[in-house]
């Protein structure tokens, strides 16, 4: 028994690929999941929200200021300047805010309408509080809930004067009108609260628990501006997310044929013909690109046939994203194959890299769930750019012209990976 075990341990020690898969991969994965779901304070994801104040009343300004102070929110009242020295763009309007949500700049926009300051809060369902409009992107199910909760919290913490005033109204309604003397005293107290409020420039209040949709003191009308009319809204996301991950596996496996050919001597024979290494790699890149694209087509067609994915009305965008994604993953596969010396090495390295890339790139769970640092790290992966591109096409219904960043990054990544693969493949070229 021990002899057999000893032999197995010896084999494991010699097989570095198996060794890596046995120990490094689980640790790497554990670390990624721990970072995402471990609840670390300094890396909790912050929700980006656009706020449009059409009212410009004291109450609305208080509300905006309160939201801005919330540590769990990143509030934008205007788009980011184009550069460091560029002038600040004009504030968002209801129209531009909706366009920004549709474009994926933020998952939520709050429109504080004119007249909000007249009836900012209400304590019962029949109240005439002016509702704030919340525009959301359904691809992020968490962001609107966080914003709703913060909105209700801020109503209490940043609008004490308004709350007190509303409280007086309710008291008069249910208990009878105040006497003039009581009114004077109440007004004096309100003035004091307002003074305190205006002096209060303290630090952000931190995140807290939301009170839920429609159940708070601030009335909210929520409207999905992206994904609302889709029966199976997340199908396209998962088709892209899972598709890209398996494309990476297929591409690296397929490119691994290069290693088989090197080992069997076929590569030597091919290179002794009129085929140069550049032509050989270009041929393999072309083949792997076509293979990956066909895989994507099959996956999305399956989504269309079984899950009612709206495939055919997005054919142009799909084709563009499909080709650049297939090209990038094919080049990635070639890069890995040329960097490895054996199939076993390739198997271990590709499994490790692809699973890590898929985890932080959004193939396993949406990137908006991740801490900000990890969301940024995700941009180093092909998965993130591909998923973003497909999301723009299928989710946001954006035109092909909006795919510039994704197409550019994936094409550039593919070209760079191919050039590196070509450089590394020189070791096979001549001895």
């Amino acid at each position, binding site marked *: 028994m021990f002899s057999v075990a000893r032999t197995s341990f010896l084999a494991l020690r010699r097989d570095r690929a198996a060794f890596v898969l046995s120990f490094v991969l689980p640790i790497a994965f554990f670390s990624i999941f721990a970072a995402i779901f471990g609840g670390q304070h300094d890396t909790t994801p912050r929700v980006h929200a656009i706020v449009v104040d059409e009212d410009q009343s004291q109450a609305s300004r208080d509300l905006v200021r309160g939201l801005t102070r919330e540590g769990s929110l990143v509030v934008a009242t205007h788009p980011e300047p184009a550069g460091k020295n560029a002038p600040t763009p004009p504030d968002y309007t209801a129209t531009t805010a909706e366009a920004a949500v549709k474009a994926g700049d933020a998952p939520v926009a709050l429109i504080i309408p004119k007249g909000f300051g007249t009836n900012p809060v209400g304590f019962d369902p029949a109240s005439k509080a002016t509702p704030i409009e919340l525009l959301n992107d359904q691809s992020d199910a968490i962001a609107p809930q966080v914003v709703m909760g913060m909105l209700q919290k801020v109503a209490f913490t940043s609008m004490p004067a308004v709350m007190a005033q509303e409280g007086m109204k309710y008291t008069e309604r249910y208990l009878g009108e105040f006497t003039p003397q009581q009114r004077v005293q109440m007004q004096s107290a309100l003035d004091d609260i307002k003074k305190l409020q205006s002096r209060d420039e303290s630090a952000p209040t931190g995140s807290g628990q939301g009170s839920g949709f429609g159940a708070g003191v601030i009335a909210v009308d929520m409207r999905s501006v992206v994904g609302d009319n889709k029966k199976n809204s997340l199908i396209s996301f998962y088709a892209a997310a899972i598709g890209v991950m398996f494309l990476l596996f297929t591409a690296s496996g397929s490119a691994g044929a290069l290693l088989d050919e090197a080992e*069997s*001597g*076929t590569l*030597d*024979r*091919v*290179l*002794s*013909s*009129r*085929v140069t290494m550049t032509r050989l790699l270009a041929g393999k890149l072309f083949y792997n690109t076509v293979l990956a694209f066909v895989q994507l087509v099959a996956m999305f067609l399956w989504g269309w046939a079984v899950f009612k994915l709206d495939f055919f009305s997005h054919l142009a965008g799909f084709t563009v994203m499909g080709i650049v994604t297939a090209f990038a993953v094919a080049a990635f596969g070639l890069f890995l194959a040329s960097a490895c010396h054996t199939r076993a090495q390739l198997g271990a390295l590709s499994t490790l890299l692809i699973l890590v890339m898929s985890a932080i790139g959004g193939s396993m769970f949406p990137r908006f769930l991740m801490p900000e640092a990890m969301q940024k790290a995700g941009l180093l992966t092909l998965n993130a750019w591909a998923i973003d591109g497909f999301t723009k096409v299928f989710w946001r219904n954006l035109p092909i012209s909006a795919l510039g960043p994704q197409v550019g990054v994936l094409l550039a990544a593919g070209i760079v990976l191919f050039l590196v693969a070509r450089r590394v493949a020189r070791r096979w070229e*001549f*001895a």
Partner: protein
Amino acid sequence: MTNSSAVTQSATARSGSTAIALRVVSLSKHYGQIVALEGVSLEVRAGECVGLLGPNGAGKSTLIRSIVGRVVPDSGSLEVFGHAAGSAGARMSLGWIPQEIALYPRITVRENLTCFGRYFSLPRAKLNESVAWCLKWAALEDRAGEISKNLSGGMKRRLNMAAGLVHRPRIVLMDEPTVGVDPQSRIRIFEMIESLRSEGSAIVYTTHYMEEAERLCDRIAIIDHGKIIAHGTNESLVRDAFGQRSQVTARFSGPAAAIAAWTQSRGGRLVDSTAEFTIEHSSQVGPLLESAATAGLVLEDVTIRQPNLESVFLHLTGRELRD
């Protein structure tokens, strides 16, 4: 390359069967401190079969790989029908049959041949014609649709050879093409090689089987430690190494030390308890055996034979293991 040399090379390339198919001049290649090739020169004429013999690690593969452009030599020159090694002209003139089964295992016999033909940019009509010729030459016509990995060892060997000839090269480099095949397949491969020779192809044949070199090769070059240490026909190699001498091997019973001492005193050498001697004339055998008897050794077995290529090879390269 100068204009005049280019003209000369073109003229050489156009010349007939007496053309120099392969010219290797002072080829050297080092891998760090290891000498793979040192000043190797060799010429092969069109229609000629030259055997390349040498122990493992002697430099044969480096020479072959240099000729096919897979190794860049440190110095020296290589020409294939007047074209510099590695050039398009040289690649089209050269066929390389590696020792490994260098095929695509998951596609059919015909598809393999077609793929390799395409790598030489053969036009469709010529490609089809060449594939048909290869299938016939390798006796694989009835297996054309078979997946390559399902072929027998001998068939894979023959397909491996055919894949190196699909572009119909004028000189073929064969690296131990009969390794691991049964006698029937070996005979078939010999017939294939002889048919190639009859068509005028030049062949460089690398092997460890001396009888193959004796049977197939017009000339033989023995290479060791990166140098060609002997070169000529089978007969001339034997003559140069042994003259008219014969080899005597004798096995004795008795104390090993006594056998060794006696063998050394008579100018022989002891190999696996067998004494070996080279004699000028058969009349020397009697006195040699008498001397053994005088030394107290009891003769068990004695053999007298004319030296052959294997004798030459072992004589020149020694009997020590190289691996």
